[in-house]
């Protein structure tokens, strides 16, 4: 059964014919793209930042501001979630047709929870970087100590052997 052949290689391979002899005769690779670009009909951006909740059309339940107390907000959102689940079960018992509003509220709380956790990720990245730098500094200091010790040991042995040779 005939299958489709792979697409041919891009035609500008001919420009690299003399690359082994003269690396400058071939064109430079294209520079990295900045801003937005289109890939297979979809728009992508090179600026990877977490979009705030308002940009996604979701109401923000925790207070805005420069420094958010993540632990407190996460705990209070958890309590709100439990209360809403309890409310939903009450509504289902008494007025079952009004579940939609409660379910919306619960999904709003979940979206806020996930957004809070996602905004913790840059903090985690910086903390990981700090940890890696500290480890690297420690390893380098250890290596410096090791080299110093070995050099002193070598000097000592050379002096010893010099003494032994002169004693002969």
């Amino acid at each position, binding site marked *: 059964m005939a299958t489709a052949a792979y697409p041919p290689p891009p035609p500008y391979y001919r420009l690299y014919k003399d690359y082994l002899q003269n690396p400058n005769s071939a064109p430079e690779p294209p520079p990295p793209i900045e801003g937005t670009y289109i890939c297979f009909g979809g728009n992508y951006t090179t600026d990877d930042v977490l979009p705030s909740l308002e940009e996604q059309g979701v109401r923000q339940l925790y207070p805005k501001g420069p420094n958010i107390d993540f632990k407190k907000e996460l*705990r209070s959102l958890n309590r709100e979630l439990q209360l809403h689940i309890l409310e939903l079960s009450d509504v289902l018992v008494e007025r079952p047709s009004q579940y939609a509003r409660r379910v919306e509220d619960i999904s709003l709380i979940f979206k806020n929870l996930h957004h809070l956790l996602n905004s913790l990720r840059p903090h985690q990245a910086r903390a990981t*970087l700090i940890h890696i730098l500290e480890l690297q500094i420690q390893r380098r200091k250890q290596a410096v100590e090791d080299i110093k010790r070995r050099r002193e040991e070598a000097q000592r042995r050379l002096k010893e052997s010099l003494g032994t040779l002169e004693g002969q």
Partner: protein
Amino acid sequence: MDIISQLQEQINQIAGIAFNTFGTLQRDAPPVRLSPNYPEPPANPTEDAANFAEQPKLMSAALVKAAKQFDALVAALPLAEGGEEAQLKRIAELQSENDAVGQDLQRQLEAAEKELKQVQELFSQAADNCLNLKKPN
């Protein structure tokens, strides 16, 4: 798994327990009399009537346990630093210290390599003298 991923997993688990609870209870609940006009529904004393009374208790216990687990994970978050600027300042400090220690290491390495070359040179001369090697002319 890191703590933030664990927190995300825990949230998803709470959501799963919640909708499983409501779904199961709604599906398995025995029929109930709505109004005096309609006859009493046929009471089928099947064997899940006994089990069914346990389900809400078990499921709500699972939900509360998952919520407590979430609180425990939140308490375990290592949010020591007081903000982004403090972290960036610490990163800059560590980078400069890393550079200084790196240069130190580089100097030690070069000195050690020089000494190694000297010793190797001297050793090969001593060995040549011992073996009385003559160059073929």
